[in-house]
């Protein structure tokens, strides 16, 4: 069984929901990332989403855009991100790692090369924001041949026919984007999320995670009430930014928020 499937099965058995933090690899500088990944697991994260820096992150709000710019100041590439995962895996064989980013770095590397290398370092899944299922046949064959899951997004604008196609193509979990907008936007609508989750669950048994607009313990708990996983990104990246001068402060601030979310999610 894949690490992702095992993770969700274990959570389901204990009645808990997955907490999935996102950070951008190499933000604010490369040496911060691997210790931060461990600190997040210690604070209650179940799965880690690691952002691959890209020069033109079209779906990101200003917070994650700036994180990617900080990482790119150090020329953090897909090679470097894979090395970070390899290093993380030395002491954590269990926590699933999802690479999240944009297609072009993967496209340039070649799908087969990427899938082989990602599997070798211990990546579990890939989420590429600008790669819809319609264009993904070749990539999916490469990923699935190397036992990597492809996570697709479902949005508020996705109709039922597309939800069906997306849930048939995707593996690992389905990522529901809770709002019309970019990452870090602030208008979470729980009732709207609930309605769309019903439509998704009618089509698939895959776990459903919800992201965009979750910024504190309260919003994490309310999403945990309706979804299998809570994805939190910009709220954490903002803490990285605010504490950019000290790796210890970054770990403390990020772990602090995650621990609050964990507690609130488990209490619900």
């Amino acid at each position, binding site marked *: 069984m894949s690490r992702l499937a095992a993770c969700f099965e274990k959570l389901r058995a204990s009645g808990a929901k997955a907490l999935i933090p996102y950070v951008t690899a190499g933000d604010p500088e490369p040496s911060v990332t691997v210790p931060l990944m461990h600190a997040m697991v210690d604070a209650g994260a179940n799965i880690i989403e690691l952002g691959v820096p890209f020069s*033109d992150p*079209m*779906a990101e709000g200003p917070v994650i855009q700036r994180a990617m710019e900080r990482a790119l100041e150090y020329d953090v590439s897909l090679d470097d991100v894979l090395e970070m995962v390899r290093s993380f895996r030395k002491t954590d064989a269990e926590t699933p790692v999802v690479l999240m980013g944009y297609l*072009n770095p993967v496209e*340039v590397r070649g799908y087969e090369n990427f899938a082989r290398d990602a599997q070798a370092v211990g990546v579990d899944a890939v989420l590429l924001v600008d790669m819809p299922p319609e264009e993904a046949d070749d990539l999916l064959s490469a990923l699935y041949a190397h036992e990597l899951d492809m996570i697709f997004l479902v*949005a508020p604008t996705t109709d039922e026919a597309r939800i069906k196609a997306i849930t048939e193509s995707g593996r690992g979990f389905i990522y529901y984007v809770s709002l*019309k*907008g970019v990452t870090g936007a602030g208008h979470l609508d729980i009732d709207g999320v609930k309605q769309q989750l019903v439509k998704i669950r009618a089509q698939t048994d895959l776990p459903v995670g919800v992201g965009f607009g979750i910024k504190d313990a309260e919003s994490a708990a309310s999403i945990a009430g309706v979804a299998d996983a809570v994805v939190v990104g910009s709220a954490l990246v903002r803490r990285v930014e605010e504490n950019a001068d000290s790796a210890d402060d970054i770990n403390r601030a990020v772990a602090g928020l995650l621990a609050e979310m964990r507690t609130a999610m488990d209490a619900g």
Partner: protein
Amino acid sequence: MPDERGHFGVYGGMFVAETLMGPLAELREAYEKYLQDPEFLAELDYELQQYVGRPSPLYFAERWSEQLGGARIYLKREDLNHTGAHKVNNTVGQALLAKRMGKTRIIAETGAGQHGVASATVAARLGLECVVYMGAEDIQRQAMNVFRMKLLGATVVPVESGSRTLKDALNEAMRDWVTNIDNTFYIIGTVAGPHPYPAMVRDFQTIIGREARSQIMEQEGRLPDALVACVGGGSNAIGLFYPFIEDQEVAIYGVEAAGDGLETGHHAAPLCAGQPGVLHGNRTYLMEDEHGQIIHTHSISAGLDYPGVGPEHAWLKDSGRASYVAIDDNEALQGFHDLTRIEGIIPALESSHALAYATKLAPTMSKDQIIIVNLSGRGDKDIHTVAEHEGIKL
């Protein structure tokens, strides 16, 4: 071309975040419907004639042709359109579509400001709210166009992310669109972006080639031997080329910006010196590094200063139907001065790249051969750039 998912061979497609897939499908349906709708087409035709000033002349540049001593050069005078460039052909079309779709707000990205001005102009004409995204760097370089947009009632939003130029303005416009899709229509200014934009913008721009074709038949009684147009994103070029693509005897040349020279790496010539990749919703040739990051581009002409190119051009290159060449900043400036002094027409720096290539091509051809060059815009907007480059203070 393209296929129903917007592919030109391996290029094109729809590489966008899921939230935009629904709105793009809605746009595609509306566009396909109204392009068959006689009432819509009649309205478009009326606006193009009475508001834009079409048809634009096909002008025989007799003195310039004689001096070059080869082919007879005709200029398709898109510089004479309202707002001074070909951009308005597309903004009129998309804005009429926006109105039909019930959208009340239009957004646009702009580099030099020409597409921003053309969008702000039609927004004023149709009473639509208009927001234009423009790189902070470009805002400084193009103060006059920024003021024109503001006079026309548009809000100009400076984009401070990334390289603070056109590509970042496009990213920011996409972010606005994804946030405000219910009431907003995104008018992309070139034949790039996700399907259906490359095909839709092409279709609105082919008026250039359709007119040129019938005008040259009228004036010369035959098809031209060569077409020449500058290529940034490539909308004026595809507009001229498309109606001639089946005519194998017509040679097609797209001219990219070689900036400081292709060998320096400081240029904006993805077809001549880039590789395929995926950016801004489509697969095409890009200026990128070995890790897939988009790199900085350079051209004296802000309108060509873009790291990608329309996917149909990528396909025309690979298929061999069109040839893509590059002209550097200095050659383009020479073309600018030549046309100004010899024909009394001040061309845009973008178009000057096409003119400079024609000065190389014409002498290799015989006097009974014909070249059509797309004079895509007028050069008033560029006189500060030219003066500065030549150390002249205005």
